[in-house]
């Protein structure tokens, strides 16, 4: 890719080509250039987990990732985790357990939890708590979030 070149990636299953400067941060590319605003900008410094996306399936803080390094890779945002119709099992569990209040942290939690349940379909409570230690929520107090992830696991998410 040339210096002021085009970035090519698979985004939520679809090929995407976008102009991208070397200093562009993946989060900014997703939200400001590609208008996928489901991924949230919280701290912008790696602390809160609101900006979590999957890069080749790996949970990644998009606020600390150069967009150019996603060139040629597969990126999934919260928009790609929802099925075309309805909600994913983790999303449904969040709704049904009341794990969302203001909702700002929710996309990050759902992306993190989706990756957790893919790799560990039956996590213990301690494993769930550990997995979400990098996602901050200022509203819920976490109890409902942990319950939602446990419910999704039980339902075979």
């Amino acid at each position, binding site marked *: 890719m040339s210096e002021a070149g085009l970035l090519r990636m698979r985004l939520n299953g679809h090929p995407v080509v976008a102009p991208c400067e*070397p200093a562009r941060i993946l989060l900014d590319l997703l939200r400001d250039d590609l208008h996928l605003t489901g991924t949230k900008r919280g701290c912008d410094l*790696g602390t809160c987990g609101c900006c979590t996306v999957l890069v080749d399936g*790996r*949970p*990644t*803080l998009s606020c*600390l990732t*150069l967009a150019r390094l996603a060139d040629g890779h597969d990126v999934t945002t919260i928009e790609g985790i929802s099925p075309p119709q309805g909600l994913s099992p983790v999303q449904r569990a969040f709704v049904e357990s009341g794990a969302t209040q203001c909702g700002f942290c929710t996309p990050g939690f759902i992306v*993190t939890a989706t990756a957790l349940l893919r790799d560990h379909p039956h996590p213990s409570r301690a494993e769930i708590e550990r997995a979400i230690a*990098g996602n901050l929520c200022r509203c819920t107090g976490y109890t409902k979030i942990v319950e939602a992830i446990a419910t999704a696991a039980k339902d075979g998410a």
Partner: protein
Amino acid sequence: MHLDPFALHRPTSVDETVRLAGSLAGRFDYLAGGTDLLPNYKMHLNLRPNLIALEDVGELRGHGAGRFGAMERLAELDDDPAIRAEYPVLADAVGEVATPLVRASGTVGGNLLVETRCFFFNQSYFWRESLGFCLKADGDRCHVVPQKEKCYATFSGDLAPALMALDAEVEVAGPAGRSRRPLEALYDAAGDGIRRVHLAPGELLVAVHVPAASRGLHGRYKKLRVRPSYDFPELGVAVAGRWDGDRVASLRLAVGGVEPHPRRFDALTEPLVGSALSDDRLRALADEVMRQLRPVHNTFLLPDYRKRMIGVYVRRAVDEARRGSAS
């Protein structure tokens, strides 16, 4: 927060990286996982016009048989039960770095070379400007120990003390080829929070090697921090050793999170080998480590408290390592 423009380079081999680094000498930073560098760049801390991304240099990845590639992600170590079984002190330390999401990108090499930290440095440009900046970035004075010569920023990586306790070496590539040196020699003990590592311009960290003799050592890493979910260490004490009944067969201790570089305390632990470690001797060891280290007031917790906790954490770390060896 947007980043200022820079040129991004993506070498694919160690040789190409070293050549590139030579041609850009002094005008670049290496980019590993970016979890330390990019927050600092966002805060306009010591920007360089070039970034050399190590992402595509395959040789830097992987771990096994005592070798840990510089670009190996911490999450890979966290997920590997063999690390817990063979190097418990390292498993402790890895699990305590930041959060799982940061560990998913953060690497071994980036952790060993993580920028030193200070309450007056890790701030926005606006915040720092209001104080007239400091020696470590854009200014000419220190706000912690008021003078104009020396920076007291704290080394805040968790892996270095653990790997020192395992007697690790680092493999470095540079214009003169490959070399190995003890991990403690990577750090400039005579330097300060700015001149903190012995890496010649353009040298690249390739891997860490843990000797076979350190496999299976009983160990513990005890970390003091404000929020256990993600804070940097305010103190990190690593211990690895072997016990033969009550008798100490080997013992190493290293401490980070206090001064501008992590430190190993062989002169204090070697005399303990060969006899039983009584409570009095353990207390004397802890007191002496505490006496030798000097926290300053540049992190969240007060230096007085951190200093006292050094003694407590040394005792706990040794005691827990020893009990681990008995079970």
